[in-house]
């Protein structure tokens, strides 16, 4: 009986045309393309034309967002001479092991080959999962601390219980493509990925590696696959919630419809109420958690559809961090 009712609702969701809701009022802290992660000017979208222009800026800022980081070699690593820290601007939408070749080369200069095993990164005792996008890692662990982000580099004692191995770039590529497929399965039942060939996957991956932004991928990607992957007509939203205070699970991934059965757009608040109600502040005001996406705390009234279209990562997922609110 249950499967019958959910079958019906699925039918309905397919028939719903999902409209853009750009005219909604949104207050965002705009990401600038300068090194600081968030500067504070609110952007208010009133007319829909203004909204469209601002939306494009948001997309660009998200894809070009950078985090200044300072890499320091772990003190117990064996070096031939003192290792200087290495500074680097990290793209929020990329992956640690993909963008840190320079870091590795810098430290290898002062080490003997025998003392070098697989590289791994740690922040304040927590091994950093390279398969999470950099921006997500920062939001989860370091968003309320002073910049630059201090990351410790290790070449020994790889924490096999915590981290996936990353022997080569093709492993990163496999993870990225696997996310794309998963997102496509959720949104379009796998229809877009099914049409892509291996060379299309390669092109997408090269686009990410070369730092192309979303618009450029729309133009460059042959066959319009990128445009189809991110298309706004989808049956479910791909949202993954990462809650840094829950030791139970590393993340919660929920299927979430962008529009309710009676046509109302679901909001960020709706998603939170269902998955992590503690993050929705009660009437008596005290905010226990911050809900952060790409370094921004969107208003809870923001439609999920809009968030999905503008704040998704290149892997087509909306990764949301929920962190304890800083106490004053």
């Amino acid at each position: 009986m249950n499967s019958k009712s959910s079958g019906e609702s699925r039918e309905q969701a397919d028939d719903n045309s999902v409209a853009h809701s750009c005219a909604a009022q949104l207050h965002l802290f705009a990401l600038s393309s300068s090194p600081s992660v968030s500067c504070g000017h609110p952007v208010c979208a009133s007319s829909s034309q203004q909204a469209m222009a601002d939306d494009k800026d948001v997309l660009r800022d998200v894809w070009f967002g950078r985090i200044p980081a300072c890499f320091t070699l772990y003190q117990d690593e064996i070096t031939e001479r003192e290792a200087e820290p290495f500074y680097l601007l990290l793209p929020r939408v990329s992956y640690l092991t993909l963008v840190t070749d320079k870091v590795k080369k810098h430290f290898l200069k002062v080490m003997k080959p025998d003392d070098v095993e697989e590289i791994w990164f740690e922040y304040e005792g927590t091994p950093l999962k390279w398969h999470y996008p950099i921006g997500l890692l920062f939001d989860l662990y370091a968003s309320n601390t002073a910049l630059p982000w201090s990351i410790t580099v290790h070449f020994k004692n790889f924490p096999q219980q915590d981290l996936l191995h990353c022997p080569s770039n093709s492993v990163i590529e496999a993870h990225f493509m696997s996310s794309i497929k998963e997102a496509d399965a959720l949104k379009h039942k796998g229809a877009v990925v099914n049409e892509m060939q291996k060379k299309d996957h390669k092109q997408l991956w090269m686009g990410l590696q070369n730092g192309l932004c979303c618009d450029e991928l729309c133009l460059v990607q042959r066959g319009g696959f990128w445009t189809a992957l991110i298309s706004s007509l989808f049956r479910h939203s791909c949202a993954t919630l990462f809650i840094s205070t829950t030791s139970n699970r590393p993340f919660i991934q929920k299927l979430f419809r962008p529009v309710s059965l009676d046509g109302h757009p679901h909001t960020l608040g709706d998603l939170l109420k269902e998955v992590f109600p503690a993050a929705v502040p009660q009437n008596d005001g005290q905010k226990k958690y911050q809900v952060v996406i790409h370094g921004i705390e969107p208003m809870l009234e923001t439609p999920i559809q809009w968030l999905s279209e503008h704040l998704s990562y290149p892997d087509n997922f909306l990764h949301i961090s929920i962190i304890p609110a800083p106490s004053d």
Partner: protein
Amino acid sequence: MVMVYGKVGQMSSPGKSAVDTIYLDEESFQQCCELFLEHSCALNDGWSWEGLNGSGEGYMKKTVLGSGKVNVPVIDSSCKSEEDFCALGKEAQEVQQDTEGITLAAECSTVIRYEYHVLYSSSFQTPVLYFRASTLDGRPLSLDDMWANVHPNYRQRLLQGPWDTITQQEHPCLGQPFFVLHPCRTQEFMSPILKGAHSECRQFFLLVNQRTRSVQGTAAGIQPMFCRPVFLLQICSLGAQLTSCSSCQQRVQLRNAPLISNPLNLVGCIQ
């Protein structure tokens, strides 16, 4: 233990491609697990349910101990053979490794703990198999170590068959690295079983647990090495469908309908 569950699902509407309307929802997965666990209990096969937070969500799991061989780095100063090395106590072995010298790899016989977890993927709406192996002191086995412990005959067959790509993924509930197995060519595996399928639209939940003999070949020690993955096959009388696997990028024409598979491109593959 081979269990095949049938559940009558909806007939897909004419004109719509079957893959659009067929899925396994989480509740059905949980129901199938309940049935599976009942059978497992009756056979004393060791599967159990691991619930999450008191919600209905969770996964099936099974832990098995077996003996096998593991590659251990050896400093070739005083240890001339693997027997010498293994004869040392654990502390002595560590001392050996710390001292300067030439590093070799030696095979060491030890007890291995295998863990199998069957989870539900809400993205692909299908069950997924996660597994890992470690020594009793918690050291995880590499993929090479695991393959080395599969009897050469089985290894060859497994590598040829659909189970030739395994990737390391983060376990969605535990956050730890596990290996995930996904078949490339489901049709080859499933079609003999499903040729006899009823023409009605059914959802099947198939779990195949293959037991192989121990590496030493003793009949007494039957050890499960690899479980065949759990996956859902949507069967529909609408005919063949095209599906492609992420790992080999082949377009798999599912002839000999009725056989449709849900997206089985669960993970990418290591090139």
